[in-house]
C-alpha cells in the first residue's frame, strides 16, 4: 500500500522522460500526456481518499527505516496539495492543447511540463529536508526550461534574473540544511522536529530558522525578496505563467507551512511575529504593484503577492483556525491564479496587446470571456459565497482572535484593493465601445480549462461546509507536531 505514495512522483517523471524520445510525434505525445494525467489524477484521488478514511501513508525507500533512509510521507496536508496539483495540471494540459504552438512542443514543452509536476509533487510528499532541496531543484530546472521556450528577447532578459535569484536561494538552502545538520545531526523532518523540541529551539536554531525563512521567502516572493517575480512570470506563454503562478510560489508556502509548524515552532514570539509583519507588508506592496501598472498580465502577476501574504499571515498567527485558513487559501489560490492567468492570456491574444489603455468593449466580441473574468475577479477578491471568502474569513478571524488587529486591517484593506485592481481590468477591457477590432477569436478549449478551474473555486466556496472538516483535520495535524513525529518514527 505504501508504494502508492511514490506514484504521483513516478508517473509524471517517467512520462516526462519518455516523451523526450517521442517529441517529434505530436499526436502520440498528446495521447500519452492525456492518459498519464488521467492516471495520475486517479491515483492522487485514491491516495487522498485512502489517507482521509484510514491513515496517513509512509514509504521508506529501500526498506531503510526512518530516520535513516529517505522517506516519503503522505499525510493529510500533502495529499490535499497533491490532488490540487493534479487538478491544475489537468486544466493546464487542456489549455495547452490548442494554445501551445508547434514550435513550443518541438522545444520539449510536454517533457518539461511533466518534470515540473514531478518536482512539485515530490516537494509536497518528501519527509526529508535535503530531499526537499533536491525536489526544489527538479522543479526549478524544469521551470528554467519552460520559461525560455519561445526564445524571445525579453524572455531571455527576465529569465536570467529569475534563474540567478533562484540559484542563489538554492545555494543558501543547502548551506542552511548543512548548518542544521551540524547542530542536530539529522535531516529527517520528523527527527528534526523531535530534536529541536528537546532543546526548545535554543541558541543558533532560531538563526537557522530565519535563514531558512529567507530561502522560502525568495521562492515564495515575500517582501523584500519579491522583485524578480512579476516581470519574469509574464514573459513566457500563458500556460507556463499559469503553472508558475499556481504552483511554484505555493511550494515555498507549503515548505514554510511544514517547517514552521513541525520544526521551528518553539519561539513563536520571535519567528512568527516577524512573519506577521512580513505578511502585512507583502500584501500592501503586492496590491500597490497591481495598481501601478496597466499591463494586464502584470496586474495578475502582482496579485500573487497579496495571496502569499495572506497565507503567511495564517502561519504567523499559528492557531488551528488560521492554519486551516492558510490551507484553504492555498488550494483556492492555486485554482484561481491559474484561471486568471489563463483568462488574461486569452484576453491578451484576443486584443493583440497587453496594454489595458488600448483595450475596450470586448464584451461584445467575447461575452463568455468577459463574464468569466468578472467571476474570477470576484473569487480572487473573496466576495461571498466564493472560495476566497472562506479562506480569508478563517485567516482574518484567526488573526483577530490572536489580537493581530493591524495585520487583519491591512488584510481587509488589501482585499478591497485587489478587487479594485482586477475589476479595473474588467471595466477597461470589456466595458465601453469597441476601440480596436479583436485580433483573434477566443480559444475555446482555453475557455473550458478556465471554466473548470472557476467552477472548482465556486464549489470550494459554496461547498465549504463539506470541504472544511477535511481541511481542519489537516490543520489539526499541523498544530500538534507530535502526531507527525510519532507517525514517522513509530514511537
Amino acid at each position: 500500500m505504501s508504494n502508492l505514495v511514490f506514484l504521483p512522483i513516478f508517473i509524471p517523471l517517467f512520462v516526462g522522460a519518455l516523451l523526450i524520445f517521442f517529441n517529434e510525434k505530436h499526436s502520440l505525445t498528446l495521447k500519452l500526456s492525456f492518459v498519464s494525467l488521467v492516471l495520475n489524477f486517479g491515483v492522487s484521488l485514491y491516495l487522498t481518499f485512502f489517507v482521509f478514511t484510514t491513515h496517513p501513508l509512509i514509504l521508506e525507500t529501500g526498506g531503510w527505516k526512518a530516520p535513516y533512509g529517505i522517506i516519503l510521507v503522505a499525510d493529510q496536508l500533502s495529499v490535499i496539495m497533491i490532488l490540487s496539483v493534479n487538478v491544475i495540471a489537468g486544466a493546464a494540459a487542456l489549455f495547452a492543447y490548442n494554445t501551445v504552438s508547434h514550435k513550443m512542443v518541438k522545444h520539449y514543452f510536454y517533457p518539461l511540463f511533466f518534470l515540473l509536476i514531478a518536482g512539485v509533487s515530490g516537494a509536497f510528499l518528501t519527509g526529508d529536508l535535503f530531499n526537499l532541496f533536491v525536489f526544489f531543484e527538479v522543479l526549478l530546472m524544469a521551470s528554467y526550461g519552460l520559461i525560455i521556450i519561445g526564445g524571445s528577447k525579453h524572455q531571455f532578459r527576465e529569465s536570467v534574473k529569475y534563474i540567478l535569484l533562484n540559484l542563489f536561494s538554492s545555494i543558501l538552502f543547502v548551506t542552511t540544511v548543512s548548518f542544521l545538520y551540524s547542530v542536530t545531526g539529522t535531516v529527517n523532518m520528523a527527527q528534526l522536529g523531535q530534536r529541536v523540541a528537546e532543546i526548545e529551539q535554543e541558541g543558533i536554531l532560531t538563526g537557522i530558522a530565519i535563514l531558512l525563512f529567507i530561502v522560502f521567502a525568495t521562492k515564495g516572493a515575500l517582501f523584500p525578496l519579491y522583485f524578480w517575480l512579476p516581470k519574469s512570470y509574464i514573459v513566457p506563454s500563458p500556460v507556463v505563467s499559469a503553472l508558475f503562478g499556481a504552483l511554484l510560489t505555493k511550494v515555498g508556502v507549503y515548505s514554510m507551512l511544514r517547517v514552521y509548524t513541525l520544526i521551528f515552532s518553539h519561539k513563536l514570539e520571535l519567528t512568527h511575529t516577524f512573519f506577521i509583519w512580513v505578511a502585512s507588508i507583502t500584501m500592501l506592496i503586492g496590491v500597490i504593484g497591481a495598481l501601478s501598472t496597466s499591463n494586464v498580465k502584470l496586474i495578475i502577476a502582482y496579485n500573487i503577492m497579496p495571496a502569499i501574504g495572506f497565507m503567511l499571515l495564517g502561519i504567523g498567527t499559528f492557531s488551528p483556525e488560521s492554519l486551516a485558513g492558510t490551507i484553504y487559501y492555498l488550494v483556492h489560490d492555486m485554482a484561481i491564479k491559474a484561471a486568471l492567468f489563463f483568462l488574461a492570456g486569452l484576453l491578451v491574444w484576443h486584443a493583440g496587446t497587453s496594454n489595458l489603455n488600448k483595450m475596450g468593449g470586448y464584451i461584445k466580441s467575447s461575452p463568455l470571456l468577459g463574464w468569466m473574468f468578472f467571476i474570477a475577479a470576484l473569487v480572487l477578491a473573496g466576495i461571498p459565497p466564493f472560495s476566497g471568502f472562506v479562506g480569508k474569513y478563517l485567516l482574518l478571524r484567526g488573526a483577530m482572535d490572536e489580537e493581530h488587529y493591524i495585520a487583519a486591517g491591512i488584510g481587509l484593506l488589501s482585499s478591497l484593493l485587489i478587487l479594485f485592481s482586477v475589476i479595473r481590468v474588467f471595466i477597461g477591457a470589456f466595458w465601453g465601445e469597441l476601440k480596436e477590432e479583436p485580433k483573434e477569436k477566443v480559444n475555446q478549449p482555453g475557455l473550458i480549462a478556465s471554466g473548470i478551474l472557476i467552477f472548482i473555486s465556486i464549489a470550494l466556496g459554496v461547498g465549504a461546509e463539506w470541504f472544511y472538516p477535511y481541511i481542519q483535520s489537516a490543520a489539526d495535524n499541523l498544530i500538534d507536531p507530535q502526531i507527525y513525529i510519532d507517525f514517522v518514527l513509530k514511537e
Partner: protein
Amino acid sequence: MEILMSILAGTLFAAGVYLLLQKQLLKIVLGTALISHGAHLFILTMGKLNRGKPPILVKGIEDYTDPLPQALILTSIVISFGVTSFLLVLAYRTYQSNKTDMMDQLRGTDDE
C-alpha cells in the same frame, strides 16, 4: 582544520557575493559558481573532518567518518554543475539576443 575550512568557505562566499553584485553577466555567473563551491566546502566541514576512518558505523567502532555530508555534497555538486552550465549558455543567448551583457541595460519596461 574545521576553522581553516570555515574561513575558506567564508572567503569563497564573500568573493562570490562581490561578483554577484557586478554588472557584467559573466562575472555574475562566475560568482554563483564560487558561492556554490563555498557551500560545498561548508557542507563537508559541517560533518566534521575525519581522516582515515571508516565511513560506516559498525558495532565496536566508535570513531567513524560521517557518510551523510558526502552524499549531500555529491548531490549538490551535480545540481550546481548542471545549473551553472545551463546558466552559461543562457547568458550567451541573452547577450546574443539583447546585444548587451550589462545588467543595467537589461531592465526592460512594463509595456512590451
